[in-house]
């Protein structure tokens, strides 16, 4: 009990007191691939350049630097993989819940009626994998709710659905 969200699956997903079970949905598995590509795109050139630069000192130094950078990339990949696995969102009757984070865990609850607008964005990499990021904005600058790595069609459908729900339940400031 003292450790909600201990496992990656997170007891946050478990049924709360007197409440039907929350059904958590996850971003597309392609999100992990996108993150891996990003890590590789940084690690590989860095390792090559670092390795070559190290050659000026000695051959061994170059190899050590190159290997160290590759290892750093692998560690980053593990961290990102856990982070990707921590994303989840759940549509409840009146609000949307989004959870994320490994080291610092976060769970945001945004009532549909409070949504001011919804963004769907996709960078070049995300687009090539057919992914998109959904972002919800309320009047509060602090409330941050985004869901990365949704399949484009899912993102569009979710956006429309949220917009409709938001309109139906809209509340003033």
């Amino acid at each position, binding site marked *: *009990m003292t450790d909600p969200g201990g496992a990656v699956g997170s007891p946050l997903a478990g049924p709360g007191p007197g409440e039907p079970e929350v059904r958590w949905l996850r971003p597309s598995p392609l999100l992990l691939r996108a993150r891996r590509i990003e890590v590789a795109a940084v690690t590989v050139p860095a390792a090559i350049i670092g390795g070559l630069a190290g050659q000026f000192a000695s051959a061994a130094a170059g190899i050590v630097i190159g290997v160290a950078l590759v290892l750093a990339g692998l560690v980053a990949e593990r961290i990102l993989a856990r982070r990707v696995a921590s994303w989840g969102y759940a549509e409840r009757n*009146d609000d949307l819940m989004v959870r994320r984070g490994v080291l610092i865990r976060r769970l945001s*609850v945004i009532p549909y*009626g409070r949504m001011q607008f919804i963004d769907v964005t996709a960078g070049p990499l995300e687009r090539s994998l057919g992914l998109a990021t959904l972002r919800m904005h*309320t009047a509060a600058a602090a409330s941050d709710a985004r869901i990365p790595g949704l399949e484009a069609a899912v993102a569009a459908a979710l956006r429309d659905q949220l917009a409709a729900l938001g309109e139906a339940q809209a509340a003033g*400031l």
Partner: protein
Amino acid sequence: MTEPVATGRPDGPLPARTTPVVPAEPPPSRHNAGWHRLHPLSPLVRAGRRVMSLLAVLIGVAVLNQRQVGDLVGDLVVVAIALAGGFVSWLVTRWQIADGVLHVDTGLFRRDSRRFPLAQVQAVDVVQSGLARLLGLAELQLRVAGGDSARGGRLACLRLADAEQLRRQLLTLTIGPASGPSAPAAAMPISRQILPDLAGQPARMLFRVRTSRLPIAILLTSAGAIALFVVAGAWLSAQFIGPVGAIAPFLPVVAGVGAKLWRQFNGEYGTTVVAGRDGIRLRSGLIETTAETIRPGRIQAVRLAEPLVWRAFGWCRLEIDVAGARQRAENRSEGQQLRALIPVGTRTEADLLLGELMASPPRPAKPAPVRARWKAPLSYHFLSWSTDDRYIVAARGRVCRKTTWVPLAKVQSVRWVQGPLQRRLGLATVHVDVAGRRVSAKIENRDSAEALQIVRSLPDLARAARSLDSQNPGRLTLPT
């Protein structure tokens, strides 16, 4: 006008006036129907400080090297161009109120036409800079939600009397049913509900800051401590190093801190809070005076701050947050600072005002679990929260105790956050966000299961509070 409203004097009991709903008595206008001009002197006031400093520099330069009259001509050309620009911008600016919407048109080459639906106005301010006061002018500012100051409406400048009248008129329009169908359905019901209650209520004075207490209080805050530190440092270095040159490096810092302290003193001098028919009225200012009217139901959060030293005197500060940043002169918006209802006052005064804002404000009564001491050794004994069916209250703070009340009906989102240390201790923090970027009530370091329970139940409580509010509005600036 019926009363000298913005003279810094609190207006006593108002007679139950009938404020005209129709745009009455248009301020001087030579334009086509319904459109009004700003006051001809307004470019001067708007440029305000910049013109003053420019003139000072030019005069200084001219005095220093008197012989070169040719340079002076060049300077005069610069001033003339600036004045001409201001005049043209005045010439092409016009405004009108029609169908509950304020239109402001401006721009010579690029026409800029803005509309402000009055139903969405969060607050109306009348601001007078020192120069504007000399000239009997005032600036009218409309605050709309969204934080971006550029989006707020600004009529600079009008004659003071006109500004006051317009303010009353706007508030009537914004509160009254006359704002029409253009108003978003959700924003209106609360305001409409309270209209009958507002009518015929005399204004009541709720608070007036003690002038003798204010400068002491300001010096006793952290800014004052910094100022003391800097002055002491300068003095010490002067003692040891000797010549005046040793003080020179401190001068910019001293000037900066001094300016900050002065700004606070200037802004909060003579703060007066009056409950009027159209909401809470706040007046303050020494040189630059501000008269704000905050409409009922527009307060997003109330915060009571008790800095360390102040607690010894039993003093506190009461601040409110309204969506939409207040603009300062020169269009800089006042970022982090909340509006102080009580810049400094006793707990009794604060409790009185709190009771006025919220019929029965809940007290932070549920302390944090003991193991929270490991996470927050300094602030542990302040951490607590509570809620009732309308408000949620959370107390926190290390040196300065801060208690924040948020109307449940205003909650925008709820977040549960747990850092690594908190996870080890089985704790979590709940953030309750309201509109704007400045305030969120933080319920810190609760038992994580309890925190989860709060996060899950709060949206439902907020919804319940909203429907409660629409049937029977809670206090928050509503005079009774």
